[in-house]
């Protein structure tokens, strides 16, 4: 006799015990600590903080540990926690011009005030597995290199130089009114640019990377130059109601990318370069560059360009950029659908039976 899928509760509990054991791995190997994840898998923590929209390195490390290193799962964990937190204040816009820079490069100018600062980058490493790293317990690699230099003094932005000549469109003026919060109010189309940027900032890195790449391959090419990429620390300020002036509540690491894109202009407007903008928590250079390309592509309507490619389609880009939403919905196909499937069986059997009887009648 068939027994319906009983025992769901027992099975779930057992599955979760197995998960806990699988997460711990081989018990004879030391457990990974949050400090190790924070310190040695810091780029993973940066991505989780960015796409979860919560700047807390320790909680990001905890989420990564709990998620067995599955970063999308870790982002989900951190977001589900974030949603329970009260919103105490909205910060003043951060001033990335005063960033305490650890890395700053421009692909548009050979040299510029503040200079090119490589900082800790994978660029120009030859991607050869370093087997010395496999021998754990060796001297930290840092000992063989010079002390980390003092942060570079604040240096002016590249776009500022072009701006003086009127060669690039000015940065968009801050839009009036409270900053929208897409985690509190549903996104409405068409979205304004700040809402769009907010969605892109927490959008999936892989998705944005692919879309950005598609623009480079001709699906809405926007002729980009990496005008400037800078990584470092900025102050976060809020204006408490009872004080009425800004106070610094801490500093965060950011990566900012300003793309310089091909110009617009016409009979009544001198040609000007246009901008695409990317910003991400921590060191997320690939993410911020991809974001800047997609931001620029999404400005098609505003700049009077024909919309022909996926990356220019706001509803397509924004409705699908969230990996927690996407992951949940794709994976919900694992849930039982046997009632719906039974309905489909009923429909398809009836269609086939009707066709068969028609054939018989014809013969």
């Amino acid at each position, binding site marked *: 006799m*068939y027994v319906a899928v009983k*025992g769901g509760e027992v099975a779930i509990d057992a599955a979760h015990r197995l998960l806990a054991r699988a997460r711990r791995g081989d018990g004879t190997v030391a457990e990974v600590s949050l400090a190790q994840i924070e310190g040695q898998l810091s780029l993973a923590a940066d991505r989780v903080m960015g796409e979860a929209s919560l700047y807390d390195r320790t909680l990001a490390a905890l989420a990564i540990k709990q998620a067995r290193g599955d970063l999308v799962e870790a982002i989900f964990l951190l977001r589900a926690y974030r949603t329970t937190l009260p919103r105490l204040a909205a910060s003043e816009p951060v001033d990335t011009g005063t960033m305490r820079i650890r890395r700053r490069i421009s692909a548009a100018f050979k040299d510029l005030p503040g200079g090119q600062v490589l900082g800790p980058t994978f660029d120009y490493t030859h991607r050869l597995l370093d087997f010395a790293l496999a021998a754990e317990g060796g001297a930290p690699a840092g000992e063989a290199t010079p002390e980390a230099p003092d942060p570079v003094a604040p240096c002016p932005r590249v776009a500022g130089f072009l701006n003086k000549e009127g060669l690039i469109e000015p940065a968009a003026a801050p839009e009036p009114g409270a900053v929208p919060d897409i985690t509190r109010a*549903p996104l409405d189309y068409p979205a304004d640019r700040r809402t769009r940027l907010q969605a892109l900032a927490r959008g999936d890195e892989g998705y944005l990377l692919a879309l950005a790449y598609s623009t480079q391959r001709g699906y809405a090419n926007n002729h980009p130059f990496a005008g400037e990429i800078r990584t470092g620390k900025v102050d976060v300020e809020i204006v408490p109601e009872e004080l009425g002036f800004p106070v610094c509540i801490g500093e965060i690491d950011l990566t900012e990318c300003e793309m310089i894109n091909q110009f617009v202009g016409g009979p009544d407007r001198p040609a000007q370069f246009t901008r695409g903008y990317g910003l991400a928590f921590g060191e997320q250079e690939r993410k911020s560059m991809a974001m800047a390309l997609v931001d620029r592509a999404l400005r098609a309507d505003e700049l009077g360009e024909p919309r022909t490619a996926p990356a220019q389609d706001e509803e397509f880009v924004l409705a699908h950029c969230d990996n927690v939403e996407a992951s*949940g919905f794709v994976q919900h196909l694992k849930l039982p659908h046997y*009632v719906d499937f039974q309905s489909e069986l009923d429909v398809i059997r009836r269609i086939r039976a009707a*066709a068969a009887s028609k054939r018989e009648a014809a013969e």
Partner: protein
Amino acid sequence: MIQGYNFAYLDEQTKRMIRRAILKAVAIPGYQVPFGSREMPLPYGWGTGGIQVTAAVVGSDDTLKVIDQGADDTTNAVSIRRFFAKTAGVATTERTVDATIIQTRHRIPETKLREGQIVVFQVPIPEPLRWLEPRETETRRMHAHAEYAVMSVKLYEDIARHGRIATGYDYPVKVAGRYLMRPSPIPKFDNPKLDRSPALMLFGAGREKRIYAVPPHTEVKSLDFEDHPFEIERWDKTCALCGAADSFLDEVIVDDAGGRMHVCSDTDYCAERRRQGHGPAAVPAPVEDAAQ
């Protein structure tokens, strides 16, 4: 009950926001109300919309039933029922007649619903026109103008191609003569239960951030044509356990040769009938401890 979280998990401000959306939805039957859907500790696509609606309407004196595919013991139903047992400490039940709130995925119970009961549907895609027009900007305009001809064309094309309307579940309905609505992926077998039901029907789509409703005693009409009237699934079998001939049957493969048996998808309905001595698997009534 779990410590450190508000009753039913969501904070009171969020619940108020959701209740406002529900009130608007009840006032405009079938209209999709955008709401500030929260990120829940369960995945999108797994009932986050239904969970938020339930969290907004549940009170400490409610009795909650959660079903998935008609069954109380499917894994996701178990998980959601536990979530509310843990965060709200409310009584739970598997019996339709005892429940004040029934959260469901893909079914409406066979047992007739009564006034005062609330059914909360989990909705994956709330927009009935979505597979005909992917753009939200466009579908909102179409609803505003009640421009639904495209759906009739789709159903007509089904008939032209297959000889019949080829939609088995999530079969489109018109609510109170105005809004086209997705009833969520329930089999069309359940569509007639929506029509003038004495219970309040609430639909929550978390990922898509929409809530809609069918108030009690509201007309819900499944789309059809005069010469191709709406019809529901039929089986030439009865339930192999309780003998029911009037319930939605799941087909189960029982052996390597592909042998089948048919059983009620609604486990409570089936168990109740067996308790009453019906069918091949009739059982003497056990003392059920419904509460978790």
